[in-house]
């Protein structure tokens, strides 16, 4: 065959018995080529580079091959090494160069460096297995097979407004003994919960960080409990191209890539998209006191934003800031996301502290950030959802103003705050709620409701249950004297701080959870719920559980039984949203009748029909969505009327008159006990009084006109 006669399949050099030759500069990383492996890495300031080769798990390398000077092209070192056992190989680099922090350089050739483009990392193969603390090379670059058999799978490309996102932590989702799965805490275990996810009705899982991180980072004994504090959430990347081995049941065999791809393929088969929470704002190397793992020792000045004195800017709140708008780093981020989209069939990305991605190399916000623009226009990422956490720890808050290029959506922090305040009965919230339930046109007028990821709870902050069980955070278990975590929780404990036997308070809490889920699912935009909220999980009022590998972060599946009213409600309200296209508009309302139905697309009401009371003391919000305007009049849906009463007494709401022949039917009434609080689609009972409805204290109803 023609491919066999290429002359670069044969070595030209030898060093300590290892045969090699000049390599290919592209692609970066380690790539299998016939008879060998092509290694390629860049550094703008190194004066020499050495390839270091290990047999898997061995203490000492079996070879160190300096790159001959003629193997360097520009700033790129590349070589092909022959006859390596790619499955057993671990590789790294030593870079020689100046150690001059004031000039931005921190080279140290005594350190073996992890390849930023490695596709798997060895060293933390099993979650919290005690590492070899004396390892000369703790996070080891490995190769993976990139030949997964996807059969006919591809990204689902569900319109974003049709998604219901379920945010979960891979380990937290099934690690609790009550999960009843075979390999708890792993990618494989999520696969065995697919039937559950479908039963719940969600169609997108957003995985909290799964890029290789070190759960041992900053680990210490917890002074409050004596237990171990670890990096559980994983917002601290060691390598951007590698899935976390410790999240795979087969991580100890180095098969995490196949396991994750199998999960994604299986989720897709069931119509569930996969989004990744990605952390490109900083790395696990910390500040100037941190360990050199990779980037710092390869090209510190390129990868990090540095102060004029050579220290690290800390816009991430975690020690360093990745220099995302440096053209070289920008390309790495792009290569990385393309890899995950193309090789892992990922449907979308949520960017942690994404405002940082819009800062220039000195930290100043850019009006036209090249990285964000590149991602928005990239051909491989063209159908991926791009979602920004539109703020950072350096004080840049861009909700509503994040540079979007017609592509980017945002975690809508203002939605979260407004909903929480309205639900707990704050005054003066009706006006803002009118914006929020419409997909926040005040924030996203030109971008449409699809720019708004609506949520009331997420991993960061209280669980949905805790929002209605705690006034204050209770973070003592984090070991920082309750000083960590935000204080702006906008929560209300319904009368008693924490757990209580008081049936009235517990009833109110359940009702409030149902109110929250109802308003979330009838809001335009894209709803996101936190895993566990559907069974009212609690973190005991801790709003910053990043460091706990225990019940604080593990979903307790035994709650499904005692909290079944919440689960049934969550399941039905999710399905209600998915059954009604009028709730899922891709464009903003026009507040007029543009299809000739006799009703505007949306109208606002209160205790009196057609009159919404925006006054300071009002806690009444009602709105009607005209079914004839669903998806801009292309689909005929039922008309939906929602009334929320966050006043402490029941109030009569006058109902808008339906067209001749149609009647109001009750879909939801959160004031009713389980069984009568939400009705199955198509089985909603007609209400007796078609003129008015008594909405209970702190309750929400949905009527459908059909």
């Amino acid at each position, binding site marked *: 065959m023609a491919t066999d006669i290429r002359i670069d399949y044969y070595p030209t050099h030898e060093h300590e018995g290892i045969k090699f030759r000049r390599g290919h500069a592209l692609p970066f990383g380690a790539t299998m080529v016939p008879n060998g492996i092509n290694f390629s890495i860049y550094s703008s300031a190194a004066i020499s580079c050495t390839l270091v080769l290990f047999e898997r798990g061995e203490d000492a390398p079996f070879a160190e091959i300096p790159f001959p000077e003629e193997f360097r092209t520009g700033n790129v070192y590349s070589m092909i090494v022959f006859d390596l*056992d*790619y*499955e*057993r190989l671990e590789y790294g680099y030593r870079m020689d160069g100046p150690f001059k922090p004031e000039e931005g350089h921190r080279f140290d050739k005594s350190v073996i460096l992890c390849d930023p483009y490695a596709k798997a990392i060895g060293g933390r193969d099993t979650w919290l297995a005690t590492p070899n603390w004396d390892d000369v090379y703790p996070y080891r670059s490995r190769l993976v*097979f990139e*030949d997964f*058999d996807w059969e006919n799978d591809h990204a689902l490309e569900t319109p974003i407004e049709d998604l219901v996102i379920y945010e979960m932590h891979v380990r937290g989702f099934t690690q609790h003994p009550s999960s009843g799965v075979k*390999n708890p805490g*792993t990618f*494989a275990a999520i696969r065995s919960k697919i039937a559950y996810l479908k039963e719940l009705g969600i169609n997108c899982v957003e995985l909290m960080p799964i890029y290789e991180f070190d759960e041992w980072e900053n680990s210490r004994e917890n002074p409050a409990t004596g237990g171990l504090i670890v990096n559980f959430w994983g917002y601290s990347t060691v390598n951007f191209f590698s899935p976390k081995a410790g999240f*795979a*049941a*087969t991580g100890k*065999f*180095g*098969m995490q890539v*196949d*396991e994750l*791809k*199998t999960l994604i*393929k*299986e989720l897709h088969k069931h119509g569930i998209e996969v989004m990744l929470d990605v952390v490109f704002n900083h790395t696990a190397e910390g500040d100037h006191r941190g360990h050199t793992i990779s980037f710092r020792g390869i090209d510190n000045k390129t990868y990090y934003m540095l102060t004029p004195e050579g220290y690290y800017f800390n816009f991430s709140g975690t020690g360093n800031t990745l220099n995302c708008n440096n053209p070289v780093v920008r390309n790495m981020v792009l290569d990385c996301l393309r890899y995950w989209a193309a090789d892992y069939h990922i449907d979308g990305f949520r960017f942690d502290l994404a405002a940082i991605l819009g800062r220039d190399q000195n930290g100043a916000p850019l009006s036209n950030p090249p990285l964000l623009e590149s991602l928005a226009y990239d051909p491989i990422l063209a159908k991926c959802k791009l979602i920004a956490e539109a703020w950072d720890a350096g004080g840049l808050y861009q909700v509503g103003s994040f540079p979007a290029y017609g592509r980017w959506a945002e975690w809508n922090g203002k939605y979260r705050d407004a909903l929480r305040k309205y639900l707990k009965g704050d005054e003066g919230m009706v006006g803002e709620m009118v914006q929020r339930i419409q997909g926040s046109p005040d924030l996203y007028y030109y971008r449409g409701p699809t720019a708004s990821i609506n949520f009331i709870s997420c991993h960061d902050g209280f669980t949905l249950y805790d929002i209605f069980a705690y006034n204050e955070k209770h973070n003592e278990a984090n070991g920082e004297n309750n000083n960590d975590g935000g204080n702006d929780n906008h929560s209300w404990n319904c009368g008693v701080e924490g757990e209580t036997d008081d049936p009235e308070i517990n009833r109110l809490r359940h009702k409030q959870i149902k109110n929250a889920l109802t308003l979330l699912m009838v809001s335009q935009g894209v709803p996101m719920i936190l895993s566990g909220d559907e069974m009212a999980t609690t973190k005991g009022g801790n709003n910053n559980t990043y460091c706990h590998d225990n019940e604080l972060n593990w979903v307790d599946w035994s709650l499904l039984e005692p909290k079944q009213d919440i689960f049934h409600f969550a399941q039905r309200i999710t399905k209600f949203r998915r059954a009604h296209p009028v709730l899922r508009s891709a464009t903003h309302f026009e507040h007029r009748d543009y299809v000739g139905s006799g009703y505007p697309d949306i109208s606002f009401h209160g205790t009196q029909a057609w009159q919404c009371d925006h006054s300071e003391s009002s806690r009444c919000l009602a709105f009607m969505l005209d079914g004839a305007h669903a998806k801009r009049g292309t689909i005929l849906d039922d008309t939906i009327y929602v009334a929320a009463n966050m006043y402490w007494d029941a109030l009569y709401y006058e109902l808008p008159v339906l067209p001749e022949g149609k009647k109001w039917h009750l879909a939801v009434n959160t004031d009713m006990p389980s069984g009568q609080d939400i009705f199955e689609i198509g089985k909603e009972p007609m209400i007796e009084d078609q003129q008015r409805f008594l909405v209970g204290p702190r309750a929400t109803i949905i009527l459908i006109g059909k």
Partner: protein
Amino acid sequence: MEVTIKDFDEITILEVKGNIDSKTAPEFERNAKLATDKSEKIGLELSQVEFMSSAGLRVLLMIYRNIKAQNGRVVLIGVSEEIQDVMSTTGFINFFTIVETLDEALTVLKQA
């Protein structure tokens, strides 16, 4: 690792002893190629395989793809529980019929 090839009329059985990893996978692959060249009905007797690495699983899938292209059939025999577990977690199991004994394999393959 040792591979023995046995023929039962139009059916070929490969008996594998030892571990299949990146060191032994090429030889396993060569033997599998010999088998798939002459037969479309293949049984892989794996009861004496204790460990199969990623490379080993890939050879299985190559055999499957090769035989499928010829409209043939592959059956795995006596796969240990641990290997089945790994195959299930990594998705490889979805492509294969797994039976306990040689007799069962011959029955399945005869009907194919």
